[in-house]
């Protein structure tokens, strides 16, 4: 139940600057996702908030109180790690109770809290088992349970779904979303490299690249109004189509971008090209059209496509869906 204030935070490891000056306000109860490519600094950012790394300069505050000097357990945070990090030699119950036992809470109090969290995550049947007797998904829930038990002000997730297979990932994503709803007052900060996770879970997304923030906004804001080429290309799957020079000139921009779901086949006009490849998903078809640009334009159709491979086609962006970018990559 805290808002987090990150002011001009920089972090260097020796001579390497990993975080180059980040300012961010995270509202209380908000689900904030840090997303970005490998090496962008998102995990480092999370660890700075957690207190597992020292802040080189700048401040991080919880509810107005600067926490730079506080150790993780004194900041009132809880963290779910990518590899779950469960204590292998302890039962699920002991894993969840460990922090409270160290803090010398009364055994009854500990029991109540553990049972409550176990109930919330439906892991009560496993309380006496060891981690190695659990599946990946169950272990992840125990890891979340361990964090819940701490009743933290801030809940931190470090790529918790990366180690799960695709089906489990979707199921656990739902669990985390439900968790957020049931723990409405707890601020959650979540790190992932998967923009789908970001889009589906976040209240707001913070896109990082090379240690600086590219854009912060709600998922829809990032989708509809990307501020620069990088964000535009990062959010949305498949990646936004980018066109330069002769294609962009009519729009008075250096580069234009159109999402594949905003492209359509037209009978005449638009851009002429040939279908070179089609991905038929059943629910949608993604056709790859070569119009003379470096990379083919991807266009999405619902259901099956009318156009086969090698067909000569005309494609054009739908009304008002073209994003325009200047020479500096910033949106116009």
């Amino acid at each position, binding site marked *: 139940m805290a808002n987090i204030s990150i002011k*001009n935070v920089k972090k260097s490891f020796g001579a390497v600057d990993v975080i180059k000056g980040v300012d961010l306000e995270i509202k209380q109860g908000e689900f904030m996702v840090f997303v970005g490519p490998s090496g962008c600094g998102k995990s480092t950012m999370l660890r700075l908030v957690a207190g*597992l790394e020292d802040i080189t*300069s700048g401040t991080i505050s919880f509810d107005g109180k600067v926490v*730079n000097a506080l150790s993780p357990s004194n900041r009132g945070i809880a963290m779910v790690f990518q590899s779950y990090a469960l204590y292998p030699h302890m039962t699920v119950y002991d894993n969840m109770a460990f922090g409270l036992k160290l803090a010398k809470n009364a055994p009854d109090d500990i029991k109540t809290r553990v049972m409550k969290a176990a109930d919330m995550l439906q892991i009560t049947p496993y309380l006496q088992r060891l981690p190695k007797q659990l599946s990946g998904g169950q272990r992840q829930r125990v890891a979340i349970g361990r964090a819940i038990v701490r009743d933290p002000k801030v809940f931190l997730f470090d790529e918790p779904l990366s180690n799960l297979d695709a089906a489990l990932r979707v199921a656990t994503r739902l669990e985390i979303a439900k968790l957020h709803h049931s723990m409405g007052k707890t601020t959650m900060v979540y790190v992932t490299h998967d923009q789908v996770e970001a889009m589906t879970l976040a209240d707001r997304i913070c896109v990082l690249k090379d240690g600086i923030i590219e854009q912060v906004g709600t998922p829809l804001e990032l989708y509809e109004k990307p501020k620069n080429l990088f964000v535009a290309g990062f959010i949305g799957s498949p990646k936004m189509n980018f066109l330069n020079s002769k294609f962009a000139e009519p729009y008075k921009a250096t580069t234009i971008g159109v999402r594949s779901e905003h492209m359509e086949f037209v009978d005449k006009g638009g851009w002429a090209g040939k279908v070179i490849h089609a991905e038929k998903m059943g629910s949608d078809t993604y056709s790859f059209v070569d119009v003379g640009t470096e990379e083919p334009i991807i266009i999405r159709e619902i259901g099956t496509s009318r156009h086969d491979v090698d067909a000569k086609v005309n494609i054009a962006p739908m009304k008002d869906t073209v994003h325009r970018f200047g020479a500096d990559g910033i949106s116009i």
Partner: protein
Amino acid sequence: MDNSTTLPQLAVETPSKNELFETRRRSAWIFLSPMIVTLLVVAAFPLARSIWFSFSDASLLHFKEAGFNGIKNYYFHKTIKMDSGAILDKTGGVLVDADWWNAVWNTFRFGAVSVALETILGMAVALMLNATFKGRGFVRAAILIPWAIPTVVSAKMWGWMLNDQLGIFNDILLKMHIISEKIAWTADASYSMFAIVMVDTWKTMPFMALLILAGLQQIPSDVYEAAEVDGIHPLKVFWKITLPLVRPALMVAVIFRMLDALRIFDLVYILTPNSSQTKTMAVISRENMFDNDKLGYGSAESTVLFLILLITVIVYMRFAKVNLEGGAQ
């Protein structure tokens, strides 16, 4: 609400350091101090005292009253005027002591031969254990036996086998017509070093074999498979592929063995006592310290041994470019 990244010149407060790291650093030193103190008391201080004794005339019973002797234990040169008027030149000290240098020679002789033998045989055994065959586990267990037996016991066991009258070793050799009469392996000056080398090799080869085996097991098998596909002769595979890849582990094993060989005491003291052919630096040093009641002189010898070891390590490290943190260049 949107926040841009670079706010101009906001007052950057000097952040205080995260207490976590301070606590950990402090704990680290608290954890380390018992060990450091122990090593200081048990190793550093006694070493310093031993070196100090080497500059004194201490004796076993009176070491509290030891007086400073300068470098006399190492080298002295004095002229003595005799009553008859003749002048005697006397030099002495460890550095010109024939017995000492004999001991040095013995030690290096022993070290070179036994380390070479143990390495070569160890390599052979390691290669054998690296291959898959039935009973491999049993063989590996069997070779651990010489290593597990206390040195003293090995010395006694071999002393019995090498006994000139009742020893089985002589018996086998006689029966195989390799020798024509019984040899006193541990007593005869021409054979005693051979006996020492043989027993030490017997005892230590397993250790070398295991270290080398660990190095061999780190080599990915697809390297060998590729060589086999290319049809390279096994001997060439060994020289050009196996040997270079196992070299880091080999170098570490060799230096450990070499140092052990240079400081050897137990085996020599028990198997071939009082033999000038096998007396090593450690043996003669202790002999002077305790048997001859020349604590200062013996300490000088042990200090020179220490220096020799130090120099050997340094030379080896530079020469073999061994990185003890792991791996070699």
